[in-house]
């Protein structure tokens, strides 16, 4: 019999403008825990979605036990005994644990639900694998950790042999992570084959047997965990720093512009705080980069700085002035510009014209209005100036509906608007997300130009290349805290990766 239970060979999947998977091969042995490692956007989720039947590959084959199979939807996957726990759980909130588990595969007799039988089976499974759940509690009332156990029970109830976990620890507390690790080991002991998607190196080292690394859609290699180290894995994940060197001269930072002290921000995802007492400074003429893996509190920190979310405690000072309680508009007037994380959710009003979007942060200024009436001519002239100055390309100039513009040009419009406000502090979260190389280079040069002009820049980035290239100072965030502070020249990408994955932390420096 074949050694591999699942083989995905030369899988290629292209989305408009991006090759998410490029001839990726992944072989899962029977009864192993196989980790799939890669940065955000490396193509891990795409690959797993193909295996689960959510996407069809453009080319490549999938084999189960050596036989070529076609998986055109999740039902096919289920028949092949492939189950998946998604990063965002797929549970019916108002149903009980039990109802969620047998939903879709209800045991019935003459159309009547055999409730006791189903219940007994769930209880048996729960006991066998050490998955403690409350069968009669509603999903909305139980913890995230228990919801995840319900998802696992769903797979076991369907007698799945191949279990996919998509970033299972992203939403869990440390204690719950420990429990999950034990559960995964138990599943392995019962002969299940497990695919474990993660970018947290420690977890992979702890629980998996082998690891396949993806980078920018390509398969970098598969290694045995016992022959490797955290350092090796992180180098494979990040790759050689292909220095796309940003032209930047040395410069001594000046006065403090932003000063954050012991800032605490609540989380919307879980009951814990997203930002747990963070302190740092950003000075004129420097780019400070907040590095970290997604979901470690960077977004919440920025929302608190720009006023979109309220902080629980701590102070924020802009040029010495306390703005902790100031409104968004006040902060904007005092000189904070914000390039938001999600340009469609926050950055733009997609149904407005380009001109209307370009004045979104200053339409109320005397230049653009006359007794409450918008000065259309001024708005149009201003838009035309920005369009030519920042080379924003669009179909119909200022009148173009922003929805119809390309992502790169939408981002350029936001950058033009925020930089032209002439801010004291420019806050940018992942400004290059989803953009092509040309646009990325442009945005980096704009950030550096702001720094050279003596402005303070706070950049949040998930891309290590970007962090190393653009910043003057790096603060690493992990689980809502700053765990390290570096100069880009004094640290390697590998070391940063360790801090970002929580494998290491340094003492808090004077500035951190």
């Amino acid at each position, binding site marked *: 019999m074949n050694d591999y239970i699942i083989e995905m060979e030369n899988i290629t999947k292209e989305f408009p403008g991006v090759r998410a998977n490029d001839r990726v091969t992944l072989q899962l042995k029977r009864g192993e825990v196989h980790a799939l490692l890669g940065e955000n956007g490396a193509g891990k989720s795409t690959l797993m979605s193909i295996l689960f039947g959510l996407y069809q590959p453009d080319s490549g084959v999938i084999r189960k036990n050596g036989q070529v199979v076609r998986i055109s939807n999740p039902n096919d996957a289920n028949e092949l005994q492939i189950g998946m726990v998604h990063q965002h759980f797929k549970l019916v909130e108002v149903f009980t644990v039990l109802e969620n588990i047998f939903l879709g595969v209800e045991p019935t007799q003459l159309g009547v639900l055999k409730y006791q039988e189903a219940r007994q089976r769930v209880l048996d499974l729960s006991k066998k694998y050490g998955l403690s759940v409350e069968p009669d509690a509603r999903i909305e009332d139980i913890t995230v950790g228990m919801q995840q156990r319900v998802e696992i029970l769903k797979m076991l109830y369907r007698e799945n042999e191949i279990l996919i976990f998509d970033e299972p620890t992203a939403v869990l507390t440390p204690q719950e992570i420990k429990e999950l690790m034990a559960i995964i080991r138990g599943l392995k002991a019962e002969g299940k084959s497990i695919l474990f998607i993660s970018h947290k190196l420690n977890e992979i080292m702890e629980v998996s047997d082998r690891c396949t690394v993806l980078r920018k859609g390509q398969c970098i290699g598969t290694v045995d965990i016992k022959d490797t180290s955290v350092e090796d894995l992180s180098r494979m994940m990040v790759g050689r720093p292909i220095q796309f060197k940003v032209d930047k001269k040395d410069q001594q930072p000046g006065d403090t512009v932003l000063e954050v002290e012991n800032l605490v921000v609540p989380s919307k995802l879980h009951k814990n705080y997203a930002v747990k007492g963070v302190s740092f400074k950003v000075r004129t003429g420097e780019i400070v980069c907040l590095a970290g893996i997604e979901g470690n509190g960077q977004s919440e920190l920025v929302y608190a700085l*720009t006023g*979109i979310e309220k902080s629980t405690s701590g102070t924020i000072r802009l040029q010495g002035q306390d703005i902790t309680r100031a*409104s*968004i*508009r*006040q902060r*904007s007037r005092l000189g904070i510009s*914000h390039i*938001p994380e999600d340009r469609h*959710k*926050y*950055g*733009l*009003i*997609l*149904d*407005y014209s380009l001109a*209307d979007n370009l004045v*979104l*942060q200053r*339409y*109320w200024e005397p230049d653009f*209005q006359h007794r*409450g*009436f*918008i000065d*259309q001519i001024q708005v149009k002239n201003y838009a035309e100036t920005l369009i030519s100055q920042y080379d924003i390309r669009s179909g119909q100039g200022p009148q173009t*509906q922003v929805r119809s513009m390309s992502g790169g040009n939408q981002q350029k419009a936001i950058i033009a608007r925020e930089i032209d406000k002439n801010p004291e502090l420019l806050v940018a979260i992942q400004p290059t997300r989803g953009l092509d190389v040309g646009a990325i280079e442009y945005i980096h040069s704009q950030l550096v130009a702001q720094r050279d002009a003596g402005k303070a820049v706070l950049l949040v980035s998930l891309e290590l290349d970007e962090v190393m290239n653009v910043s003057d100072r790096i603060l690493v965030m992990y689980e809502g805290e700053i765990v390290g502070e570096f100069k880009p020249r004094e640290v390697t990408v590998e070391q940063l990766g360790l801090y970002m994955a929580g494998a290491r932390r340094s003492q808090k420096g004077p500035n951190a």
Partner: protein
Amino acid sequence: MKARIRKLIQKPGFDSLMASAAAIGIGLIFGLILLIVFNPGKSLYGFSQILFAGFSSAGKFSKVLYQAAPLIMTGLAVGFAFKTGLFNIGASGQYMLGTFFALYTGIIWQFPWWAALLAAMVGGAIWGAMPGLFKAFFNVNEVITSIMFNWIGLFAVNVLLANIPRVLADFYGASNPDRTANMAAANPAAIVPKWGLDRIFGSSYINISFFIAVILAVLAYIVLNRTIFGYELKACGYNRNASIYAGINARRNIVLSMIIAGSFAGLGGGIYYLSGTAQYTIEKILPAMGFNGIPVALLATSNPLGIIFSALFVSYIQVGGEAMQPEYAKEIIDIIISVIIYLSAFSLLLKGFIRRQLQKLARVEAKAASEEEVAA
């Protein structure tokens, strides 16, 4: 030729216009089928009444304008709020409060017509503000609160009117006690003036209310499209997150938008019952004028200028429906309007469908073009 059609198709609003026209067309065809089913012999006569009665005489046309005026106002009440991302289903209640304020100030305080109309706007504004406040500060869905305020408004107004003898018709010698006074007897100065239009049209229905409504629709259009305030309101409607990001006070805008919407509906009640020809009957039924504002706004995709025309259309076929009597029950017109309403609720779906078809066409063409290139 092809290029010109494509240019037309790509114009913003084309798909909205198409969707509205499709809804009207299908609704009318359905009406014709109904007419054939109920009375085949008279169906063509009935259908021609629907289509042409409104233009058949100056008198009929005055009636079209007379009914269109309050419809424009309730349509604006729904459409204006909708531009801000709020579904104001409470136009009926706001219309009721406007009616009460107009009648009370006009009869008891002997206000002149213009002051009574302002009072009607205040009444509607108060009723609009309630759901707005609940939405802004407690995040209560405005649909639920405005429905409840419809009924609260209706019964509150009925109770008040029934207990103020001087506003009722029998106080002035008429025989029906469940009706408000004839304004000619109670306060002629409160009747919306006709400025000689009655002589031109030869009908007592016509007055300046249609023109008041048109002016307000134009004002609403200007506010929405030319002012800072309108810019903020629409920003909240299109993308609440982005408007918060830009420092816009979304709460304040929700309340203000509902106040303005309410005052529009209130004015609708005012101009209708101060016309001198209408008398309010105390009934346990919400006035249809308020609900008809919803299809009027939907048909016009909430564009204030479009609302003028969709209100005229609805009023026009209502007049046609009255002209079909006694061969047909007037309810047939209500069914036709209902079908149009139903389909105009689908107009978003239709719009999406039309847009998808157009995109598909564009893709097929692009693909063909690229294949030609490859072949060449």
